[in-house]
């Protein structure tokens, strides 16, 4: 136990150093140019952080999920885009390690990820499915030589051009229903990516997420044996909501820290008076602590539910509602905290080039309610509430 804690602590020390020395230093440039945060990702690779969640027996770091969530928080404090790329990669890793089912191809693949620090992006959204993760049009299509192919039209693929491999949801066969999905891992040299759009968004500009038509040819061993609906319910959805929420909390925490730095600077100019902004900072602290409490309690609930036999509790509707609520609450609260921080700093918070700037924080967190649209989640919750008992 204490060895595991030491390993986690060492990992997080490394992450904080990368966050300060690489993510923070380049955050404004990444944001301004809407470019991939190559410095932070190179540093994470060099540190072996891309395989943190892979068990040591497969060559990975054997780091706990809690520590990886904390890493997303730490990176989020310095560069939201770097944190989002790291979080999305770890979501794919978690889906594989938690649903490996002893598949030899995937075990060997995870060893490769650990050795080569391969970066994985996901291709889950699809044109024509109305943003529903649980439906696909594109299908695993048998080819003549016993292999398989797919062609998928994806409206966004985050860091698609920078990933070594893609993890793609597809219908199981060309005859399968839209909800009968599998997930397939393909390598860059097995694919072509035809870019179909541009990437000039309000925030999270470094995630570099234009649309693509992805075409691939692959071996059927590259289909994860566990059906995607199970992977989604027990892992992809709750893990996404948890890791995203941790990085949103990180961004909001840095916005709060900048507002506090501004208030302290004002107080030092007139040490005999409490500046009026100090009271607004107190209000903002309450808002931030609500966000932190929800993120922390969700992480605890997830760790406990993951430890139940067969992760039974994670597949219940009560659990789906719980992590949907995390997503809604955190994605609404994070931009609220950033906006509060901007109100405290006033014009120096609004400007992009002061130590108290929080424009990037506000713009980055405004993506949160859109990543799986909150209204869609409410729609799903409304249905589940008709039948779930204890929520």
């Amino acid at each position, binding site marked *: 136990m204490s060895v595991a804690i030491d390993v986690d602590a060492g990992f997080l020390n490394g992450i904080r150093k990368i966050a300060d020395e690489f993510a923070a230093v380049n955050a404004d440039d990444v944001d301004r140019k809407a470019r991939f945060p190559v410095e932070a990702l190179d540093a994470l690779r060099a540190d072996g952080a891309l395989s943190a969640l892979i068990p040591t027996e497969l060559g990975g770091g054997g780091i706990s999920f809690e520590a990886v969530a904390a890493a997303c928080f730490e990176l989020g404090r310095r560069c939201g885009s770097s944190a989002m790329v790291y979080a999305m990669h770890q979501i794919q890793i978690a889906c594989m390690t938690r649903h490996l089912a002893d598949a030899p191809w995937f075990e060997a693949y995870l060893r490769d990820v650990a050795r080569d620090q391969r970066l994985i992006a996901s291709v889950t959204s699809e044109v024509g499915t109305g943003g529903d993760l*649980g439906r696909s049009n594109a299908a695993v299509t048998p080819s003549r030589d016993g292999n398989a192919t797919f062609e998928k039209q994806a409206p966004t693929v985050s860091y698609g051009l920078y990933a070594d491999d893609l993890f793609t949801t597809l219908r*199981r066969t060309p005859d*399968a*229903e*839209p*909800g*009968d999905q599998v997930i397939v891992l393909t390598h860059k040299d097995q694919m072509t990516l035809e870019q179909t759009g541009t990437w000039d968004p309000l925030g999270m500009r470094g995630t570099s997420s234009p649309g693509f038509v992805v075409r691939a040819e692959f071996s059927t061993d590259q289909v994860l044996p566990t059906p995607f*609906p*199970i992977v989604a*319910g027990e892992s992809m959805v709750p893990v996404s909501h948890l890791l995203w929420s941790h990085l949103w909390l990180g961004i909001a925490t840095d916005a709060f820290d900048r507002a506090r730095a501004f208030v302290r600077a004002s107080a030092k100019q007139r040490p005999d008076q409490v500046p009026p902004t100090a009271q607004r900072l107190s209000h903002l602290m309450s808002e931030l602590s609500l966000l932190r409490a929800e993120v922390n309690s969700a992480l605890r609930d997830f760790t406990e539910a993951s430890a139940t036999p067969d992760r*039974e509790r994670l*597949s*219940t*509707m*009560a659990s789906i509602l719980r992590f949907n609520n995390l997503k809604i609450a955190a994605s609404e609260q994070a931009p609220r905290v950033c906006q509060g921080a901007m109100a405290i700093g006033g014009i120096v918070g609004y400007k992009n080039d002061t130590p108290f700037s929080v424009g990037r924080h506000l713009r980055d967190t405004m993506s949160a309610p859109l990543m799986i649209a909150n209204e869609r989640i409410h729609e*799903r919750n409304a*249905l*589940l509430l*008709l*039948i*779930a*008992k*204890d929520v």
Partner: protein
Amino acid sequence: MDPESGMGERVRHIILQHGRLPTDIQALEDHADLYQAGMTSHASVNLMLALEAEFDIEFPDAMLKRSVFQSVASITDALERLQVSAA
């Protein structure tokens, strides 16, 4: 559990009404996967509500999960467990 039992037929009838399957429920075996047959998660909630009404039971949260509503057999099995515990 007897797949030919009356309960199995009642379950099939409710799936026919509420499961919104693109295929013929009578052509599916008791253990056939209803989700693979095209039952959406939306339809599965309607099915759960209809089953609660038809059998005058309430599924506890621990039973409200995908695997319980995956097939005619798993639903019948769940209903039998509930009625046995209620008796």
